């Protein structure tokens, strides 16, 4: 059964088209992450699902019923906001129980539900406090508790972790994943953080300029990005994108004489002389040993940055730069020429004009 169905949703503010026709079908229990940079329309889409904004066109179905025009409270959803949006004048217990209070749930039942939720989130000892007496992470838990206690059909999260510091963000991310695995609820989660998207999602919708660039599982998004934008957005450091040209038998990196054979499966990518963009993830690159298989690139090492777990190395091929994530103990010298290699399977090809992937799906 589909939990949420988004059908050709459009949104215009005057002349500005924020959403240009979004279609997503979400199965029950899925964790969908809407991923994109600010202004891509992801929060607008979430607000439309919540009923805080009305679409200019299209339809939204929750539990197979259209909720177009329905009040947010009648949509069987709960939302967690970026700013937590706790009620500052109410205790934590009343914050969590507010939705039940408004729905006239008897006090005893309400109290039990609040207590159970607080226990689940490990905030039982905070129930009597006011939001201003809580730390950021505790407020976040209360905000999640407020959503959980009502047991809605769909949870909506609007960048819930972006106000937390890095360490707390990781903890809460794990916590959210744990909760989702335990409760198996349907979630729509908005973020601009690709790590959050990769770790939490069962499916990711990468959005850009009011459209979906790619909708797929985290593995698909990472291994087979459909466009240059997705390739550059997901992954840290981002995928290396090099200008290149197809030759009869292979691929030549622009500005170099470097030609390497095109894998069998990609021979059909285009005629000789066609310009393409080549993509290789930094983590797919390694220093070539003499007997290495795969594709080889010769580059001039410029800078090495040790992050701890890896040595992020920037090197130059002609006028273009590539980044490689090497093991931390690699011995390299800036200014030296090195041969890097990577597997054929790690190669991506994109059309330089429309940015689409040239790899067969």
């Amino acid at each position: 059964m589909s939990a949420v169905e988004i059908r050709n949703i459009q949104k215009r503010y005057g002349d500005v088209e924020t959403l240009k026709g979004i279609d997503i079908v979400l199965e029950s229990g899925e964790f969908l992450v809407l991923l994109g940079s600010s202004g891509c329309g992801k929060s607008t889409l979430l607000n439309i699902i919540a009923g805080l904004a009305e679409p200019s066109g299209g339809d939204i179905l929750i539990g197979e019923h259209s909720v177009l025009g329905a009040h947010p409270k009648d949509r069987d959803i709960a939302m967690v906001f970026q700013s937590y949006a706790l009620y500052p004048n109410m205790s934590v217990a009343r914050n969590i129980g507010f939705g039940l209070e408004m729905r006239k749930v008897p006090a005893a039942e309400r109290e039990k539900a609040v207590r159970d939720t607080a226990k689940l989130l490990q905030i039982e000892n905070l129930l009597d406090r006011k939001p201003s007496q809580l730390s950021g992470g505790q407020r976040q838990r209360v905000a999640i508790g407020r959503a959980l206690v009502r047991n809605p059909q769909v949870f909506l999260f609007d960048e819930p972790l972006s106000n937390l510091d890095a360490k707390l963000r990781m903890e809460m991310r794990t916590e959210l994943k744990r909760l989702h695995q335990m409760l198996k609820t349907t979630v729509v989660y908005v973020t601009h953080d690709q790590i959050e998207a990769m770790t939490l999602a069962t499916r990711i919708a990468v959005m850009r300029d009011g459209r979906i660039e790619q909708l797929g599982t985290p593995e698909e998004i990472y291994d087979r990005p459909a466009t240059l934008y997705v390739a550059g957005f997901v992954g840290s450091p981002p995928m290396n994108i090099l200008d290149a040209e197809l030759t009869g038998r292979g691929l030549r990196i622009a500005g170099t004489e470097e030609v390497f054979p095109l894998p069998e499966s990609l021979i059909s990518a285009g005629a000789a002389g066609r310009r393409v963009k080549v993509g290789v993830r930094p983590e797919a690159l390694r220093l070539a040993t003499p007997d290495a298989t795969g594709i080889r690139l010769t580059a001039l090492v410029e800078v090495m940055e040790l992050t701890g777990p890896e040595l992020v190395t920037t090197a130059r091929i002609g006028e273009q730069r590539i980044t490689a994530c090497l093991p931390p103990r690699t011995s390299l010298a800036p200014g030296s020429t090195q041969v890097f290699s990577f597997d054929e399977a790690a190669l991506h090809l994109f059309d330089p004009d429309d940015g689409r992937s040239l790899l067969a799906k």
Partner: protein
Amino acid sequence: MERQNPLFTAFVYASALLLTAVILAPIVWLFIMSISPAADLSAKPLNWWPSEIDLSRYRTLLSAVENSAGAAFIASLVNSLQVAGMATLAAIAVAVPAAWAVSRTPAVSWSLYAVIATYMLPPVALAVPLYMGLAYFGLLNSVFGLALVYLTILAPFTTWLLKSGFDAIPREIESAAMIDGARLDQILRLLTLPLAAPVMATSALFAFLLAWDEFFYALLFTSDLRAKTLTVAIADLAGGRVSDYGLIATAGVLAALPPVLIGLVMQRALISGLTSGGVKG
């Protein structure tokens, strides 16, 4: 704290003392005048310190004997309380929905600017039309009529203050309550208004003071004890052939008491209202 030059510290304290003196001097002098014997106040050179403490004027003004200066003063005190109180309550009642609407619907904020523009008109420009209007409705020399006029002055002002108060309350809080199933009246009653309480208290106090101190319209639109306010009554004291400066000062001291008392009572709310932003969770 950073290490500071002692000279600089002394300068800061001296400035603070000077400021205090400038603010307090008129009030202290008013009080001294009110307890000085009449002879001290007309002596040349002036006696800055009373030769004896004379509380007779307080007795005069607070005596309720009919047709005395005291009865007139007390009547005007009551009128002032009524007019300022009614106008303030009405102004807040009008401003809450208006300010909330403007704060949450920026598209109609032009209307607030239009209202503020009328606020810029000098009172004298409106005196004649208001007089004729009040006369037509039989509201001249009436506390209700005067309160109505004051409402037109206070409402734009309180709306403006309350709007900035509502602006400081994140809209997401109201969105969250909406999703939680609260109706508009519940959102306002349980969340928005309690969170805006400090700003409401501040605007009520300022509105009350504005109405309390108003003189021009009160002078024009009232004529006897039924509606005359304190400011007019004090002016009357100065209007005779022989002015008792001490009596005027005493009336001033007494007129200052109610706002000061209200201010003291509302002090906590007032301070948090003036340092707004304290509403954020």
